[in-house]
């Protein structure tokens, strides 16, 4: 769709450019060879001046490439070597004096997230995953996940958390391995980085601002202008399907991971209507039936959310890696989508009946 729209827009723009007006013509003939030789001369002069300056000053003058007249590659003018030298100096001198014991560094949860095999009860405890809400605010269906009460709050059983998180990781890696589109959603402040990182690793989509209601049920209207592309099993673009894509229904995620289900109940409801499985972090006050695979944990602690999002992202990364390896070996792990106007079970963008447009409800 967007292809058509951009063409129209560009076409209008082209129409508004005024035609060039030739106001004067060249009076004398120009000798092209003399221009080239004069250019060569000026280049030689520049180079000789350069070498003079290099000898005299401490500042390194970047050399100029004779073809493009741009400064040379940073790998050749010494910048990379200087940087490497600095890095080696830092590595040596920072290690002198004392060894620092392993300790919590908040940024590493986003830059180097834990993998599913790193999930331990100690990690979950340190990330405050066991802290539930006030006992009077609980959802009784969560009683199966609660270990006990302390200081007026429910304590979530960490063994249960670990087991559910591992199961969710298995689901994510399975979906990724089969070429599914995973949507990571986390709309609370501070969750942006971990949501984006998880989506990057799983090669899926992310959302950290408000979910627009109807993006799945009314996708034909809300997401109709979004670009769709065709890729092969190596994730390379396959051109030539523009006509088929015009009628192709709007994409829906194959799995949704929601880090704060309480705020995103509309999204979860839409997923339920469209048979999209969901994974969600279920606190003691949340309804576990809202999601397909609940992870009983503390959704109010950013550290806990980052650990869980990181683990799920890593699981997605592993699934994608498996899919690529199998594709290299000639084994395509999914059934390719048929690209015809009469695609089954989809909603047509250009007309069709109401069942096609709005789904059966």
């Amino acid at each position, binding site marked *: 769709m967007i292809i058509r729209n951009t063409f129209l827009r560009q076409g209008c723009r082209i129409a508004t450019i005024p035609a060039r007006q030739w106001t004067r013509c060249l009076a004398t003939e120009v000798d092209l060879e003399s221009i080239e030789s004069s250019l060569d001369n000026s280049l030689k002069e520049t180079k000789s001046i350069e070498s003079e300056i290099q*000898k005299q000053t*401490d*500042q*390194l003058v970047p050399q100029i490439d004779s073809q493009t007249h741009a400064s040379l590659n940073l790998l050749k003018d*010494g910048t990379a*070597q*200087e*940087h*490497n*030298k*600095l*890095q*080696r*100096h*830092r590595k*040596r*001198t*920072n*290690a*002198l*004096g*004392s*060894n*620092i*014991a392993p*300790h919590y*560094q908040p940024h590493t949860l986003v830059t180097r997230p834990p993998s599913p095999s790193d999930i331990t009860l100690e990690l979950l405890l340190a990330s405050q995953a066991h802290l539930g809400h006030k006992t009077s605010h609980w959802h009784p269906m969560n*009683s*199966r*996940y*609660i*270990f*006990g*009460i302390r200081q007026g709050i429910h304590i979530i*059983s960490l063994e249960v958390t670990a087991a559910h998180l591992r199961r969710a990781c298995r689901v994510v890696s399975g979906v990724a391995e089969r070429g599914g589109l995973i949507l990571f959603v986390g709309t609370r402040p501070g969750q942006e980085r971990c949501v984006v990182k998880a989506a990057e690793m799983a090669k899926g989509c992310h959302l950290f601002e408000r979910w627009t209601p109807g993006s799945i049920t009314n996708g034909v209207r809300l997401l109709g202008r979004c670009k769709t592309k065709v890729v092969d099993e190596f994730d390379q673009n396959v051109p030539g399907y523009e006509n088929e894509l015009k009628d192709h229904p709007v994409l829906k995620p194959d799995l949704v991971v929601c880090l704060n289900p309480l705020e995103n109940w509309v999204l979860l409801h839409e997923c339920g209507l469209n048979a999209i499985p969901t994974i969600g972090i279920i606190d003691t006050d949340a309804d576990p039936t809202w999601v397909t695979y609940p992870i009983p944990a503390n959704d109010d602690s950013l550290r806990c959310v980052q650990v869980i999002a990181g683990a799920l992202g890593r699981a997605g990364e592993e699934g994608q890696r498996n899919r690529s390896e199998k594709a290299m070996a000639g084994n395509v792990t999914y059934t390719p989508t048929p690209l015809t106007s009469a695609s089954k079970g989809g909603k047509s963008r250009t007309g069709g009946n109401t069942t096609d447009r709005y789904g059966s409800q």
Partner: protein
Amino acid sequence: MILSNPLRQQTALRAYRPSICVQCLYNPKSQRRRLHRVPQLTHDAAFAEHGVGRMLGPESYITAWRDYQSYLVDRLNKMTADTKDATRPTKDILVEYARSPTHASLFNHASMAWNNHSFFSTLSPTPSPISPSLEKKISSSFSSIESFRATFLATANAMFGPGFVWLVKRDDYNRNSQALPELAILTTFIAGSPLPRAHYRKQEQDLNTSLQAGMFGPRSGNEPMMAPGAVMLEPMLCVNTWQHVWLHDYGFGGKREYLERWWDSVDWDVVERNGQFDAFGGRRGWGLGMATGTGSDLGAGR
């Protein structure tokens, strides 16, 4: 799954008054984290068993390294507990507090830990000789290996009082002008640091002999002209002239002999690697790196 029984709920209504100090309950001394630890030397086991060549016996080595470094690291832990420096590398701590009189003790212990580790990292039970490339560098700066050795040991011997003597490589060395040689000898007294960013506390002079009126302060001419860290050098080698290292084996009069035996235990391959002679550079200096604030160090540059 809820494990609270009715009896517990009734008792929970009563006010909770601990009989012991709550701080002690949750943070007893035995449970405090010691985030700084003594680093592991490559040849620690060999040194502890046989001593360091002919330089130090096993007991002296254990005193000078294991005991002293543990003491320094322990003090460092105590001073940095529950602060942002608790997990920072020693070098970052010493550089930050080099100019702060209120944190003099923290600087001293961090700097001493850094210097002591530097000293022991260049020693080896099977030291490698000076390679031809290193010999060339030393000869170009000091006219010959023998004169370098003589100057170095004489400098160390002449220092009255504890300190370190360093072999440093200038990073602003200009190959073409050769106004100043590439390698130099630097002395640091007591717990002074050779690191450029800490050069407010380089302590290059012995205050017993060189103190004069007008020597310190912004108009003395001894204040660094450039911003901290702009005069860059790479410490390559050092000798520890603190008495606790050599007193047990040599007595008060044995400093010269200790220095000569130290020379024979130096692993010159490590020294050459520390100098980073293989990398091109130095003409540019580190001014650019500083301005753009590269890297993981808090603050800028090195």
